[in-house]
């Protein structure tokens, strides 16, 4: 699973042109993964959210203040191992926008 942090969804003052270019790159990336049979699913996440924690069940607006840390969405991809997953993540389009990809293996029961 690729978990995307920061990047396009957190950038401020993107011009329409930049937004469309970024989007085109994402679409091309998904297309490429899909053609290689690696793409399984993916969803963007809405900005904002809620957090509930502790015995007291304290509700907060969550640790979403830092734009760079916000999780913008995720992909599930087919990869044999971490090396392959790392290779697939090379084309993540938002590295230039200071985006980050967290790569985790989904545990199969």
């Amino acid at each position, binding site marked *: 699973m690729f978990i995307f942090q920061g990047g396009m969804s957190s950038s401020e003052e993107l011009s329409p042109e930049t*937004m*469309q270019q970024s989007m085109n790159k994402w679409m091309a990336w998904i297309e490429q993964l899909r053609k290689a049979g690696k793409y399984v699913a993916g969803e*963007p996440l809405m900005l904002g959210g809620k957090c509930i924690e502790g015995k007291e069940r304290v509700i907060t607006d969550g640790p979403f203040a830092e734009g760079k840390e916000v999780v913008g969405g995720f992909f599930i991809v087919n990869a044999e191992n971490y090396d392959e997953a790392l290779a697939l993540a090379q084309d993540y389009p938002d590295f230039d926008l200071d985006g980050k990809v967290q790569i985790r293996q989904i545990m199969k029961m």
Partner: protein
Amino acid sequence: MQPPSSSQVNHLIEHLFRRESGKMIAVLTRLLGFDSFEVAQDIVQDTLLKAMVTWSYGRLPDNPSAWLYRVAKNRAIDHLRRERNFQKIGSAYSQQLQQDLKVDPAINDMFLDNEIQDSQLRMMFACCHPFIPVESQIALVLKTLCGLSVHEIANAFLTTHDAVTKRIYRAKEKIIQQKIQLEVPPANLLNSRLQTVLQSLYLLFNEGYNSSHPEQLIREDLCEAAMRLCQILSEQTFTNIPETRAFLSLMCFQFSRFQSRVDDKGNIVILKYQDRSLWNRAFIQRGFDYLNAAAEGNHFSAYHLEAAIASLHAAAPSFDQTDWKTVYHLYDILYTLKPGPVVALNKAIASAYAVSRQAALDSLTQIQGLENHYLYYASLGEMYLELNKKEEAKKYFTRAKALTGSRIEQSLLQKKITECN
């Protein structure tokens, strides 16, 4: 969720976001009032952001434009509902909205194609209001109608982010102070107001045609923006005056040469050496069509003359076979309409080929007001070089090179300097 197929990706028109954002801002500004154009911009920005995030993950709607308008419209309606004070809403719609809280029919109408165009037209007149300083007019047109960010505008005009923000701020001040409305001016003011709009678009095209940007000689996007907006003027009966068509003609002719003006290494190719087979025939044809359509009545403008001059270049099979006598004659008339050193410079250059190099040189040396303009010295250099006076030529080319900030122009001038050795 199904990821997008490549055909869907290709289906997204180039610059769709930029184009639609300009239109959406115009429509929403009409809905919310000109003094709320920034709210309209924020709504459009949010809409595009939402589109970017969801579409990126493969949720491309069947009709992307319609999706954008729907989301933007709903957000605008939410905004209106939140605004309890309907007085704040500009234009004739405030009353309508006050009387009838079922706002949707009135708003829906604004999203019809012809109404979108009408909103853009109103927006053009409002942005180019004579109370707003010219610099601010252009910044406002680019920001609202053309969907450029402050950063992109600053980049296009070689200025800072702050300077552009200030220009827009000054425009906003005037809009509020003078209560400028988003409307087409009344018939008695229409002509003079239209002239201001055309002039602003002319400056916009000019900046794109010969950009002051250090790395980019031509900013096609700026030229396209000017052409697209002028096209709207030509599609509405009351703004489709001969000048509008003449200006469109001029832009088509100039645009037709873009491909040949820079070689594959990014160097400038001057008119004399351009590969004329690269000139875009379709644009030349459109140029002639608009020029014919502009020849109506007995009124002619500077746009007519400039378009006619451009047409002579477009029609010439080669530089030497250009009808220089007529070009010179037209510049002569243009000078009476638009006296100024830049026209005088062009007239002098034309005289080099219509009369003689010496005549051109004599006229050039008499021009005043271009002492800081590289093109003036470059032209002097060229004339001296053609008269085989290499030492003088070199002196002027060197001076010209020091005055231009464009890397591409500097490299052309360096080549000329080398030629003089």
